[in-house]
Structure formats: C-alpha cells, structure tokens
C-alpha cells in the first residue's frame, strides 16, 4: 500500500532567474485595482496584504513606489477604540492585523503616529493566565497569536509589559514528539507554527527550550526531490514554506541542512513571467503573500539582489538594525 511521495515536477520552461522589477510592478498594480473582485474578496486580509506587498517592495528597493501618506492614513483608520487594529475599515480588531499594522508603521518610521499605549494595553489584555494569547476578545488561542503579541511589543520596545515567562511556558507546552510546534498544546506540528514559536522564543531570548538538532532534522526533511519545501510530512511543496521553514532553520543555526541550490531553483520556478509575482507552486496563480515569502526566502538563501531580510520579523534587516530589538540566534 505504498504511498508515492507527494511532490511536483518543475516544468523545463519555468523561469530560472529573478524577475526583480516585474515583482515590484506586480505589487504596485495589485494595490491599484481596488475594485477588482480578487481585491475586494480578500478584504479580511487587507492589513496583512499591505504588509506583504510593502515589505516585498522594501526588499526589492522600491518602497517609494507606494503612496506613504495614503497607507498610513488607512492604517490609522483601522485602529479601534480598544487599541487593536482591524484588517480593514469597519472590521473588528485582531492580533493578526495588529502585527501587520505595526510592521507597516515601522517600515515607514511612523509608529509614533498611532496611540501605542492603547495598542500595548490591548495586547496585554489578551494574555491569559496560562501565558497564551487570545487573537481577539472571542477567545481563539493559537501560538500564532503568541508570536504576534511578542513581535508587536518588541517592535514597540515594550516587551516587558507582558508576562514573558508565562508566554514562553505556553509556547513550550506546544512542543511535540518531533521537536516541532503546533497551534495549541496537543496540536500536530506545522512549519508555520514552528516559525511563530521559534521566532517568539528568539525575541524572548529563550531558544534554549528548542532541541535544535531534533527540530532542525524535522525541518530539513521538509525538502522534497523537486527542491521545494512542504509544511508537514507527506504534503506538497509550497513557496511560503521557503519562508516558514527557512527562517526557522536560520534562527536555530541549521540553514545549511537543506540543499540551497535546489530550493532556489524551485522558488524561481514559481514566478509568473507575464505578470510578475510568485505562486505557491509553478504554474499556479500568483498573490502578494507568496511574492513576499518567495523574495524573503531568496534573501535568506543569499541572493544579494534582494535586500537582507530579518528571519524573525520578515522585515528588511537594515531597518531593524536601527532599533534596539534583541534577536537571539543559535
């Protein structure tokens, strides 16, 4: 009853070089089609989408192509009375959109234009006695939210406002038999969750909880014959895992455990030569999410035409060097 390895074959005519400018154009034009079906239907991701797009542009050195004041105005309109940010105007606040909002403001050096005290108070209010974080007042718990909370506070320089010990304790309680992490205690390991947990522990300076050799092995086994990375065992490869897996490997000092050349080949093959942008797999539809994580992955793999990216916060390294944020790496 053998299962064949789930993987793809890279078409021979797939792109083999980085189409840097096309990606900048793709992002800019994506942001311009505000009445487009695709654009409207993803309103629930607007703030995240703007972070993906703007960071992509920053990494290829074209952040100036967007209208700074327009973006900041939108972000300000999304801050709710409670302090948190919503994905779009009229929607409810959530930690996922709050981190994106703070990241966008940091990109534009405009954090001071919002009420940061209110953001901090709101984030604090979402921490539970077991150390976990709700995503919003409705009580969903997830290690993604632990990362969002800690990353926001680190960017605001206010990490000491929450109970970091408890937050770490909760994240560590989500560690599994394979050394990787899941959404909640008992949940199966997933590369996206690993990134969140490892990133959170890096910001908290507690990476010693991670068994780097064990986790590193699980992560490097995500690489498939095509060179692409999957997010869990026996799953298909996807460009976004070039980020979740790669960034985690970088943080725990095991980036050399995968075959870099094969992965670069896979990521480049996911570009769309006509429109620019990256898809999850060669030949699929592109979107800003995969575009950012394709570019950021290439940056971690040493492509110097893309700016150096910070593996914990997925933002340009040069920007964060100016901040006082402490990143721990193994």
């Amino acid at each position, binding site marked *: *009853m*053998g*299962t064949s*390895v789930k993987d793809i074959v890279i078409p021979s005519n797939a792109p083999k070089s980085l189409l840097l400018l096309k990606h900048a154009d793709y992002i800019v034009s994506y942001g311009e089609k505000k*009445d487009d*079906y695709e654009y*409207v*239907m993803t309103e*629930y991701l607007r703030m995240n989408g703007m972070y993906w797009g703007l960071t992509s542009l920053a990494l290829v050195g074209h952040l100036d192509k967007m209208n700074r004041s327009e973006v900041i105005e939108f972000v300000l309109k999304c801050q709710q009375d409670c302090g948190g940010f*919503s*994905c779009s105007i*009229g*929607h*409810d606040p*959530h930690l996922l959109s709050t981190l994106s909002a703070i990241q966008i403001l940091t990109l534009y050096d405009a954090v001071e234009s919002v009420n940061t005290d209110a953001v901090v108070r709101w984030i604090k209010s979402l921490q539970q006695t077991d150390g976990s974080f709700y995503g*919003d007042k*409705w*009580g*969903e718990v997830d290690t993604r939210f632990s990362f969002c909370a800690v990353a926001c506070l680190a960017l605001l320089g206010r990490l000491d406002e929450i109970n970091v010990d408890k937050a770490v304790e909760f994240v560590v309680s989500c560690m*599994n*038999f*394979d050394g990787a992490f*899941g*959404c*909640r205690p*008992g*949940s*199966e*390991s997933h590369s996206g969750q690993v990134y969140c947990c490892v990133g959170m522990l890096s910001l908290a*300076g507690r990476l*010693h*909880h991670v068994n780097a*050799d064990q986790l590193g092995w*699980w992560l*490097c*086994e995500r*690489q498939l014959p095509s*060179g692409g990375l999957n997010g*869990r*065992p*026996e*799953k*298909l490869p*996807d460009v976004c895992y070039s980020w979740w897996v790669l960034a985690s490997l970088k943080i725990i000092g*095991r980036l*050399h*455990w*995968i*075959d870099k050349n094969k992965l670069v080949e896979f990521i480049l093959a996911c570009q*769309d030569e006509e429109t620019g942008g990256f*898809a*999850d*797999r060669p*030949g*699929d*539809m*592109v979107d800003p*999410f*995969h575009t950012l994580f394709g570019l950021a992955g290439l940056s971690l793999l040493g492509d110097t035409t893309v700016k150096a990216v910070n593996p914990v916060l997925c933002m340009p390294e040069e920007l964060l060097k100016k901040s006082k944020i402490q990143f721990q790496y*193994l």
Partner: protein
Amino acid sequence: MHGRLKVKSTEEQIEAKKKEREKKLLLYNGAMSKIFLKKQNGELDQEMLLLSGEVLVVNPDVYTLWNFRKETFLELSTCLPGEQLQRLYQSELYFLEACLKKNPKSYGSWHHRCFVMDHMPDPDWKRELELCNQFLQLDERNFHCWDYRRFVVHSAKIPPEEEFEFSLRLINNNFSNYSSWHYRSKLLPILFPDATQPMGVSEDALLKEYELVQNGFFTDPDDQSNWFYHRWLMGRGNQTLNINCFYVSREDNCVLVSFTKHIQIGKKTDLILECNEQTMPGTVWLNPNKTSQSSCLWISFYNVFVWCNAQIVRQISIRIIKIIIIIIIIMFICSKRFCNDLNWQYRADNLTFPKDCDLKVTLVQGSLELCSSSLHLGENDSSLSGSSVISMDKSIFSQEMSPLKKDTLLQAMESVLQLMEMESDNKWTVLTVVLLMKALDPDSYFDQIMCYLDKLEDLDGKRIHYYKDLRSKFIIENIFAGTELTNASAITLSGRSLTKMYHTELLPLVTSLDLCDNLLRDVHEFNLLQNVKVLNLANNKLENCEGLQHLPKLERLLLNGNNLTKSSDLLQLTTCAKLNFLDISNNPLSCQEEEIQTITALLPNVSICFKQQ
C-alpha cells in the same frame, strides 16, 4: 490562495468570468454594507444571521462576520426561550457544516463551532465526535479537524483509551498518517505513565509501539511518518537537571557552576553559595555572556570591584550598578565583623575565600532544593573542582537500558537490516540502523556507524550537511565518553573532519583545545570554555568569531586558514582581556592592508600574525 492553477482562457471565457464576478462583487458589496449598517444600528437579529450567512458560506474567512454572529447569538440568548435558542444553535451547526464542507480549513468556521458548542443549552457531543470522524475520513491530516476533535474529547470527557483505539484504527487503515502517530505520542504518557522512564511512558507500552511502527515501515518504507515516530521511541527523553561541575578558583576569586541543562538564575531559581555552612553574601551570578539570560554555565566573581571594571558596564544599566555599589558598601561595613567571625582573609578591596573551608552550591526553587555540590578548599589549593555527576561516564551520551529493551532494539535492528537489504536505496533504513547502533553500543559499532553515514551522504544528497554534523557529534561523543574530562586540561580533536563542535558545556575546565584541520563553520557556545588559555582553530571554515567573546583566560588563539573576510569578524576578541597572541594568516582579510590596520588598532595588546612566516 493555494493550489489554484493558472489556465489560459479564450476571450469569451474571460468575458463570461468577468460578468460573473461583477455580479458576485455587487452581491458581496451590497450584503456587506447592509450588514455594517445593521451593526451600527445595533440590530443583532435573525436578519443579521441571514445576511452574514450569505457572505460566509462563500467566504468563511471574513472573521468579522463570525464575530457579528456571535454577538447576535449572545443578544438572542437574553430574549429567546431555551427551546427556541437550542433550535437556533442547532441550525447554526448545520450552517457551519455547509461552510466546512466548502472550506474544511477555515480557522473562523472551526472556532465558531467551538463557540456554538460552548454556548448552546443542550450540546450533543457524540454527534460532534461523529462529525470529526467523517471529516477525518475525507482528509485524515486536516489539523483543524484534529484540533476540534481534541476540543470535543476534552469537553465531553471522552476517555483517552477510546481515542487511543481510534488512532490505532486510523493507523491500521493507513500507516502513512503522521497526525495519528502524533496523537499517540500525546496519549501514551496519559495512558501509561511511568516517571522513571525517559519519555514518561512505561517501557511495556513503548515496546508495543515499536512493534506497531515496525509493521508501518515494513508496509511503506518510504513514508516519513513511521520513521519519525520510531526515532522518537528510541529517544532518551529529557536530561535531568544536575550539576556537571563546581569549580572554585582562589586565584581569580571566582566560582563556576555548570549544569546539565540550561537554567536561568535570579528569577524563580536561585543558586546559593555557602562557605562553612554560612551563605556567602552578595553573590551575583552571570552567564559567560555576562548577562542573566538562561545558560548552562554560571559564574560568580567575588572581587566585585574587578567585576564592575569589566566590560559589563555597557550591558547593565548604571542604575543597577549604583544599587550594587550601595549594597557593597553596606556589606563592607556589616561584613567586617562577620568576616572576622569566620576567620576570613580581609582586604580593603577584596573578599576572598578563607584559608581552609567547605564550600557548597545549592540550586533552589522556592524552598525546593533541586541539586547541590560541595568541595573542601584547602589552604594550599589555588583552584579546585568538584561535581555531582561530572565523572564523564558513558551514560552522559547513552541510556540505561533494561535487558528487555535491549532485546527489542536488537530485534528492531535485525529487521531494519533485513529491510535495508531489500530496499538498498532507502535512506530511512540506513539512518535508523545508525541510530539503533548508537543507542545499543556506540563504541563497538563506531566504524560501522561511520560507514553508514558515508552511505547516507550518497543516498540523500540534499541533507548532506545534516549527516556531516551528525557524524561530528558522534565522533565527539565517542571521544568524550572515553576521556576523564574533569582532569583533562588539554583536549585534541584535530584533523577529524568535524563540521560542528558539540558539547562545549562539558569543557569548562579545559585549558587547551586543539581543533585545527577540521571543517568547522562556527564557534557558537565556545564561551563556555571559561578556562581555556590556548585555542587552536587553524584551518577550518570559520566566517566570524561569534561565540569567542568573554573568554577571560584566553591567551593564544590560532585562526589561520579560515574564511574571515573583514575586521568586524574579530570584534568579539576585544572582550578577551588576556589575549596576547593571534594568528590570522591565510584568511581573505589578512592580505588587505586596510583590514590589517583596523585589526591592529582593535587589538592593541595582542601580537598578531598576519602572514605566515
């Protein structure tokens, strides 16, 4: 936006799609503005459910609408009679099923289902479990559904035995089911607890799992799930916290304690130093990086003034230092009598150890004593080390095994070797044999392990550096297992193709370490070598010195023949106060005049060799 194939369409198709989308867009925009208007007006009623439902069934990720529904339900619970409310919640469950069938991976839908079950007057948990079974039949790896199942199991108090049975059914149906193996790893410690075993699971139960997973990899030797689980079963579990080494130096007036695990001293955990059964006052513990972040090595300097002069000033705020100085002055005044009582040597700027004393360190958490170590410092001892477990016997790297377990592992090895013969290019069998040999008898299987690691590099080129690092670890453990590390002052590991250094935590007393002619890429955690004077890292692949900071005794450092390219790669060396000789010849930076000048200025007291003589 995953897995949507980009297809070439005709102009007609494009036009038709455009029209269809315009229609959908109109509907979406219309519904959304109505919903937001209702929300603004506080109209949380059945119509709100209807309108938001129209959007959610198409696009279940619009989390704000799920929130509106929750608010509506909370509002309706205050005015609807119980029966009606129950029916309303029930219809919400049906609605959710429709959404989940359309998109079984929507976080919002699954969380909303939890909300409904938590709030409805009479929840039917059995039905929910049945729903999980159905969804897992469609996709046995859907982690949202697995998480929902755990929520149901917890809420309905379903016994873990039944869930264990359930996971077995799934595995017997398809061994390639990582989610089920994962579930078993969580259920085993609950069902068969045994605190004396490394994994917290009784040996008997573990051995049964071995059998099950062996069936798995015999059925499908290329599936990762079985092999990952098998490796976990072979694991040693967590190392227990203990003191590796307790070292006191009269010369440097410092105490050094190394542990088997990382700990953080100062928060909940405290390390208490006693001299002749009296707690030493003013003990300040820092890790080798001179911070209080967690570490397996903690150092206390007694000459507090020297301690202040060291480079910590930058890292600790002036305020803390002021407080410390005030404490010292108070201590200074108070301790005069105290010290006389204890017959301590007393100098104006310095607290030192008494001529002849019993010293003890104890790690405490609240009132709980975690571990301790003691030694007697004689009048003529300049430095001394003691330990509770440092006698570097083999158990540090291997596990105590019962005859039964040994037997099981031997049998496992035999069957995996058999499988290896049949599947000659299967890397999992080779790796598993390596791990079994390492667990059973790393010394006598050593040469075979090395051979199999060669084979793995051939079979699995993508992970070649993983195998190289694993090999380095095994080589180092093999050498350390045969060395009495407490007494060893010099360790030689040169010319062994090591790509990574492991276990520097076991070498706090080593004064000379030779690692030349290897393939090391980094020197992380080398600052655990607090007594090292001579460090030979010549002819490796180092690109920076991250890890060589704050080595107080380091005098000679050989870095010739590495990949150091710029002066900033050596920045850490400025924190090694006693460094007097440095060889950086044969590095890319050593032929650049500008870099040479910067380095000379950076390390004024060091004699530096830039060119090979």
